[in-house]
């Protein structure tokens, strides 16, 4: 059923990583991605790998579960691998017909592949251990200073969170309208492109009308519950840094220092 689709899949369990402040996880993810582009030797990649392995272990998310998510990028990975393998100039190792594999190419391809895998696993650890709601909260708080330059940070976060809440409802609704129009003989599959686009009108018009009606109802419900924007609001679940969060920041800082110190020296 469509209602079971969840965005940015969250893996429900209790772990140190799950309990970390979402801001820590956001900052760490950004730092980790940066570190992957900073390092360019084996020591660096080993460091990045160890760090990732440690976090995955602590998160209690089964590795199998994470690897399953990687399958979808296998194709992308292969392309990156092939391009790097054949198109990097340098000392030729193997030469097949017009294509040459260079020593630099192998190195580049391996690094690129490892980098991509780490990058995706690193960011999926974040989405797997943080609910979408915590993420928007974390973002709101982190981007808070931008309010000074008139960026409506609270409103953006509220919109994201409402969008997340309504995605499953609208998906279900799409399914229902589609079925209802099919019951009236509508055909969403056959025909050429123009015909297909035209056949979407009976689906999209009711869907938009419904979305607007829902938006209108929701706005009224929010107002009647005294919502008036971000000012003067308190939080039910305020983000407060705990000792573990400070420790995590420390660990990330150490990791970055190590990466720059050892990962930048060419072997």
């Amino acid at each position: 059923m469509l209602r079971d689709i969840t965005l940015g899949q969250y893996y429900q369990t209790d772990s140190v990583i799950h309990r970390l402040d979402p801001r820590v996880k956001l900052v760490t993810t950004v730092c980790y991605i940066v570190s992957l582009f900073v390092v360019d030797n084996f020591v660096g990649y080993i460091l990045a790998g160890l760090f990732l392995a440690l976090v995955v272990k602590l998160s209690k998310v089964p590795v199998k579960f994470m690897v399953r998510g990687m399958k979808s990028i296998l194709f992308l990975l292969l392309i990156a691998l092939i391009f790097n393998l054949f198109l990097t100039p340098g000392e030729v190792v193997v030469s097949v017909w017009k294509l040459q594999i260079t020593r630099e190419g192998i190195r580049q391809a391996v690094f690129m592949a490892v980098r991509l895998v780490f990058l995706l696993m690193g960011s999926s650890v974040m989405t797997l251990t943080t609910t979408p709601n915590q993420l928007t909260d974390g973002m709101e708080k982190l981007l808070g200073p931008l309010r000074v330059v008139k960026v409506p940070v609270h409103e953006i976060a509220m919109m994201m969170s409402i969008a997340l809440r309504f995605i499953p409802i609208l998906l279900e609704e799409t399914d229902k309208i589609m079925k209802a129009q099919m019951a009236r003989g509508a055909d969403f599959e056959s025909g050429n492109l123009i015909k297909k686009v035209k056949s979407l009108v009976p689906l999209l018009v009711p869907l938009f009308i419904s979305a607007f009606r829902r938006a209108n109802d929701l706005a009224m419900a929010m107002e009647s519950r005294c919502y008036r924007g971000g000012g003067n609001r308190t939080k039910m679940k305020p983000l407060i840094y705990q000792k573990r969060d400070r420790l995590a920041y420390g660990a990330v800082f150490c990791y970055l220092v190590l990466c720059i110190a050892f990962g930048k020296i060419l072997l």
Partner: protein
Amino acid sequence: MGIVETKNLVFEYIRRDEEGNVEGITRAVDDVNLSVGQGDFIAILGHNGSGKSTLAKHINAIHYPTEGTVWVDGKDTCEDANLWDIRQEAGMVFQNPDNQIIGQVVEEDVGFGPENLGVPTQEIWQRVEESLKAVGMYEFRKYSPNKLSGGQKQRVSIAGVIAMHPKCIVLDEPTAMLDPNGRREVIRAVRALNDVEEITIILITHYMEEIIYANKVFVMDKGKIAMEGSPKEIFSQVEKLKSLRLDVPQVTLLAHELRESGLAIPAGILTCEELVASLSAIRRRRGWG
């Protein structure tokens, strides 16, 4: 003065055609005088388009009167300074259970109102717990609203309003989209709030079974109050209700039909037991049993 008072309340809106030219004016609420006391359970009945929802939205300052005045706890809803006090004191529950839940987790949704009021964090948690317990949804506090039934969603919405500590709750057709089980759940929760917490209830509905528990019933038609009285008084006028596009529970209708056929049954029978008792009395008088 009662918790909610309206005096000569009129609400008009302008109908426009596609080019935005004025086509006409519709008077959705027409000269309504209402007085609701603290702790009352009021039911407002009416067919679709009778103006009952428009009236309800005045109590929460979503609509403002075109003419006349609405007071909530003595405060005029037209004065901007009163707006947030009024919305806190008179909470509102709407018809569609999906379109009024903001949070992605039940407890977060219930906390939304108190957050807006600037209640300290510690107290929000306390209020959320109390409110969810009051509607019997505490064990679902960690659930996603999408996983709940319609009746459960409406109870979460009610909890969301209670957490703002209102004096009065306006429920605008809260059961119209629910199945009979969901309807019973919601009405039970509402009655408990009225009995135990002594919160004033204004229930808007077109289901006749739901008004039996009210102290006072108003029936609306064409924006006006067409009937008012106790449920018994209202139900004793079966023909008039029918002319207002409403019906009565089967037991009331049967009692009415029997009365028309010449039996001495009192008007406004509301329950099965009442009917059986009065029929037994007739039988005794006729000399059997």
